[in-house]
């Protein structure tokens, strides 16, 4: 197995591990000092070398995204942190904000400096009260030390960080919905282009980064971009460094683990996660948040392209978890937080659970998503009640296909992807409900 690391997690679980003193004792606030000695352009270049693929789910290269920001002008630039963690199965950013908030603050200072921003907003979902409290406390501590404000670390470059709160809407994790919400509006996604780098928060050049993406940036400046990237088993695919892996559901040791990029699902489930509860067989695994497709434990992958030849013919559980490896395999890495289901799970009920989520959280702006998500849930409900027909199962497929690609944001695809993957992989279970009646099914989700 790949080596476990502790760049972000060394103070997890320690008393007062979230304080500035603990952070500095562990080597914190050294990366930013190095970064502030460099020119902003050089900071962006160094970040590019680290090949940090966005940890929020889209997997876009962080340094590349930073380089899209226009040159400083009289317009203010903004850095906005997406801390609206709410993708089902994902719980890694919360651990950073609660147990290592200064890593995020340090990353924000470096990000602001690199992109010509003087103001940074951390958009935290309202439910995470402890995260907000710890972040505000970290900001106050950093201010008192002179790390934030007019002259951070003595450098004449003003940086101010504010925590902004949401009010309960999954869609605000979508970056343009988040920007609308930050501006005091309903959290509905915007059409792109213009992209946030041209016209983001308050119509100004803006970059939106995930919590974990920014929190690992200080490590990049401590180790050097190239050295950081090479920690990864997928350095050759430009997917660098280390990241947080989450595992939840039917495993013995659910939790967040830090490791080099390139860990496999088998290692995540059986080594870090301690194996399946009661040593039951695996029914399936969702690799990175509920919007990713579900996979069978014996699925063989075939990834097109020479770069991926080494992985062809292997089981999905043995493919290194990387942005491009999983995309190539017809899956999605997402947030890299896996949901594990043992054979005790009725996959029809699992899909019903998720379809309720998407119906509930659709913002209602685009018709295919607003109507489609409701429709998907109603069809699954009917099947679960034992009243579904084969024609409706086909219709379910058609609705999900029609949502795909026809909405402003990726939410629609995020709902359609699990819908299609579940009925493709577990079609027999759905047909059993229809043909043999609901009473013949196990109808359970938990052990």
């Amino acid at each position: 197995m790949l080596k476990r690391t502790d760049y972000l997690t060394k103070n997890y679980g320690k008393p007062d591990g979230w304080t500035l003193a603990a952070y500095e004792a562990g080597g914190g606030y050294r990366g930013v000092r190095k970064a502030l000695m460099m020119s902003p352009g050089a900071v962006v270049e160094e970040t590019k070398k680290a090949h940090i693929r966005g940890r929020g789910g889209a997997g876009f290269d962080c340094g590349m995204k930073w380089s899209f920001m226009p040159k400083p002008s009289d317009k203010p630039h903004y850095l906005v942190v997406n801390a609206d963690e709410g993708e089902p199965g994902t719980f890694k950013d919360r651990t950073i904000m609660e147990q290592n908030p200064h890593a995020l603050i340090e990353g924000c200072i470096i990000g602001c400096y690199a992109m010509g921003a003087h103001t940074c907003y951390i958009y935290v979902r309202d439910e995470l009260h402890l995260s907000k409290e710890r972040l505000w406390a970290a900001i106050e501590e950093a201010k008192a030390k002179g790390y934030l404000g007019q002259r951070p670390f003595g450098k004449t470059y003003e940086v101010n960080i504010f925590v902004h709160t949401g009010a309960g809407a999954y869609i605000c994790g979508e970056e343009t919905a988040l920007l609308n919400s930050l501006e005091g509006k309903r959290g509905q996604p915007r059409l792109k282009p213009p992209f946030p780098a041209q016209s983001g928060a308050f119509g100004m050049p803006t970059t939106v980064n995930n919590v974990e993406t920014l929190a690992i940036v200080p490590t990049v400046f401590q180790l050097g971009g190239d050295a950081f990237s090479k920690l990864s088993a997928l350095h050759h695919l430009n997917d660098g460094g280390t990241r947080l892996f989450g595992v939840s559901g039917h495993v013995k040791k659910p939790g967040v683990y830090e490791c080099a990029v390139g860990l496999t699902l088998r290692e995540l489930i059986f080594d870090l996660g301690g194996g399946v509860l009661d040593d039951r067989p695996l029914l399936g695994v969702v690799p990175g948040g509920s919007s990713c497709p579900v996979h069978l434990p014996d699925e063989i992958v075939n990834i097109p392209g020479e770069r991926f030849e080494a992985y062809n013919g292997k089981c999905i559980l043995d493919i290194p978890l990387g942005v491009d490896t999983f995309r190539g395999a017809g899956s999605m890495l997402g947030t890299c937080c896996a949901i594990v289901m043992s054979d005790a799970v009725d996959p029809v009920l699992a899909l019903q659970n998720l379809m309720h989520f998407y119906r509930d959280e659709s913002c209602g702006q685009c018709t295919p998503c607003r109507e489609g998500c409701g429709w998907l849930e109603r069809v699954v409900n009917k099947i679960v009640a034992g009243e579904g027909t084969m024609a409706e199962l086909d219709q379910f497929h058609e609705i999900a296909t029609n949502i795909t690609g026809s909405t402003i944001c990726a939410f629609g695809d995020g709902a359609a992807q699990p819908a299609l993957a579940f009925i493709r992989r577990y079609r027999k279970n759905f047909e059993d409900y229809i043909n043999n009646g609901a009473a013949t099914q196990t109808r359970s989700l938990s052990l």
Partner: protein
Amino acid sequence: MAFALSDERIKEFAEILSRYPNKMAACIPVLHLCQEANDNWVSDEVTEYVAEKLELSAAHVKGVATFYSLFNREKPGKHQVWVCRTLSCALRGSEGIISHCEKRLGIKMGDTTPDGKITLRTAECLAACGTAPAMQVNKEYHENLTPESVDAVLDKLLAD
């Protein structure tokens, strides 16, 4: 009676405004501030007050208040309980926790106990999947729930 913030909260209001380049951006944090000052709900008086303070139309503020699930449009119980129902928690038995809460309090999800003490609701993913099943009580998380630990929490709320 028309809604108004106390002097102390007015100071907080001014501090919130200072974070943003315009007044509209303060809309959500200010709605939270007012909701807390108004027994945890956003009445029409509150939206009108916020609209006037932030120089926005009442329709805009009402639109925002109705979009987000954590702004209550009706007065909830003294304590609010949200039990996570999404997949990772469901795999760990949230369904049992939900029915346990309903039985214990004698109400259904979405309802408030007759004495006005507790409003019980389900939540979508609380980002506590590794410590499932989880629930939020007011501003606090309770994780790795069992029927016994849920009882201990609910007993405390009922006695308050």
